[in-house]
């Protein structure tokens, strides 16, 4: 399928160019972490499988649904801004934030349980990875919520338009990255054994 010649403006991905540097840096970091997890597990299969059993997979699955759906809502928000409906965009963004907040609550609950059970970074290598990965990702979800909050607020006050909405796309891109990382993290840490 030959694509029609795109105008030069479409050769760049959406959002500010700088955020894409951030995205790739984040993906690189998490990627290295994922690979480190995979190769370490290869030498500690029994330990990893046993420790993994104690994780709450159902909550993890729910969290996956929450993030995927909130990403979808963010896509709808961007579409709304492109249609010059800043208000609708704000609604979609608030909804996305709501789901993100749900993720935060479920995760905090999970961490609390772990803490109560005496799980720390030094408990064993699996838990070191589990905590490092999920806490690190958690921090990115928090930052992502802040970012969504900022663009949602600006969209609510009509600060974006079809002509000028780079901010929305930039924030959206960051949120999608947060989602993307979880999409790999969940099966890797919670499922595969």
């Amino acid at each position, binding site marked *: 399928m030959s694509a029609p010649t795109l105008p030069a403006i479409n050769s760049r991905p959406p959002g500010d*160019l*700088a955020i894409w*540097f*951030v995205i790739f*840096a984040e993906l*690189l*970091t998490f990627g*290295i*972490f994922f690979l*480190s997890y995979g190769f370490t597990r290869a030498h500690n299969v029994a330990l990893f499988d046993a420790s993994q059993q104690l994780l709450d997979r159902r909550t993890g699955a729910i969290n996956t649904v929450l993030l995927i759906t909130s990403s979808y809502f963010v896509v709808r928000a961007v579409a709304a801004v492109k249609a010059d409906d800043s208000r609708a965009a704000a609604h979609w963004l608030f909804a996305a934030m709501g789901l993100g907040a749900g993720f935060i609550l479920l995760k905090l609950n999970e961490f609390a349980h772990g803490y109560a059970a005496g799980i720390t*970074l*030094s408990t064993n290598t699996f838990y*070191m*990875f589990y905590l*490092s990965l999920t806490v690190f990702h958690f921090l990115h979800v928090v930052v992502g919520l802040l970012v969504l909050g900022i663009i949602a607020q600006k969209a609510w006050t009509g600060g974006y338009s079809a002509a000028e909405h780079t901010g929305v796309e930039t924030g959206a891109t960051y949120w999608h990255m947060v989602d993307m990382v979880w999409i790999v993290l969940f099966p890797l840490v919670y499922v595969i054994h």
Partner: protein
Amino acid sequence: MQYQSQAVAKPYFIAAIGLFVGQILFGLIMGLQYVVGDFLFPAIPFNVARMVHTNLLIVWLLFGFMGAAYYMVPEESETELFSPKLAWILFWVFLVAGALTVVGYLMVPYAKLAEMTGNDLLPTMGREFLEQPLITKVGIVVVALAFLFNISMTVLKGRKTSVTMVLLLGLWGLAVFFLFSFYNPSNLVLDKFYWWWVVHLWVEGVWELILGALLAFVLIKVTGVDREVIEKWLYVIIAMTLVTGVIGTGHHYFWIGTPGYWQWWGSIFSAMEPIPFFMMTVFAFNMVNRRRRDHPNKVATLWALGTGVMAFLGAGVWGFLHTLAPVNYYTHGSQITAAHGHMAFYGAYVMVVLTLISYAMPLLRGRQANSNKAQVVEMWGFWLMTVSMVFITLFLTAAGILQVWLQRVSTTPMPFMQAQDQVAIFYWARELTGVVFLIGLIAYVVSFFVRGETKATAT
């Protein structure tokens, strides 16, 4: 120069270069002591020469940063410096305090120096790079705070640019992290943990912000590329620096008694520390390629490009070589470390200060650039110093690999001093190369006095 008060930068630059020469002389003394063990003993034992060498390095770089700030900030802020007089006073205070400290190291046995300078009030002496007496450390803090006050007030009353914001963040960070030199826990693990909050968070943290700001400033001036483009690059570079460098501190926490997860965190994050340096190199070359004008100061441009390359090689590549825990397990504290340390410091910080001086000094002396003849001599200085530093690094790397093999990896490990004997040839090579470095430095100093057809006078 555009603002009269920028003139205060000149004494700072002169002091910087003078102390740089002192640093190299003591480096050469040590280099010889590596192979002729009792050279200058007991007058200047190795450990004293080392203190002088490392402390002079830091002090002259600080003079360089301060001079750079005094030059850059009025121009960026489009207003005169808040208090040129304060800058002059601080110059003399810092110079005299620094000189007295070095004299103290050389003339007084260290324990006696500690007693004389009130170390029992609050013990801060005795740690690598932080050997300064308490009163010197307090003096550094006072000078730094007053300097920051001067610079910050200037920025506040004038235009705020990305360059000054990043510079200020770096310089304030420098001051804040130096405060950790006063914190001396008796627990050895904690002692080492916090020591790195000065050293690592300086050179792999806030100093990189200073480096970025200085490089960006010079590139804006010599290339004429749109400020916004350069500023955007600067932000991305420092973001990557902070993201990789802060948790990257963990690559100093592998073996000091901290929990094992630091081996993972330190390895993974510090592995990415070369990225901002790579970006700086691409940034520098890209800006020069896209230049809108051909600035007559060719040698300053050469220094700028050289900084990118050498910083990436010395700090980025050589750092990466021994940053992963499984590698560092074997190479820790070896000549590999020395190789990295030398090229990193030279490539990143020595070169960026010399870049700034190369750009600013002619302007401070009333011309846009030095004469062709003078620039050629300066270029000789650049190439002699840079190439000899590359060879110093290569020789020390070779020594390090051999040392690690013989002393640690081999199935029949050799004792330390025996291994040192085996690598002596590389130390001789390093010393000879070090002499070439000194020749380059002399050429560099001479270039300030070379006349010839002067370039267009500065506006």
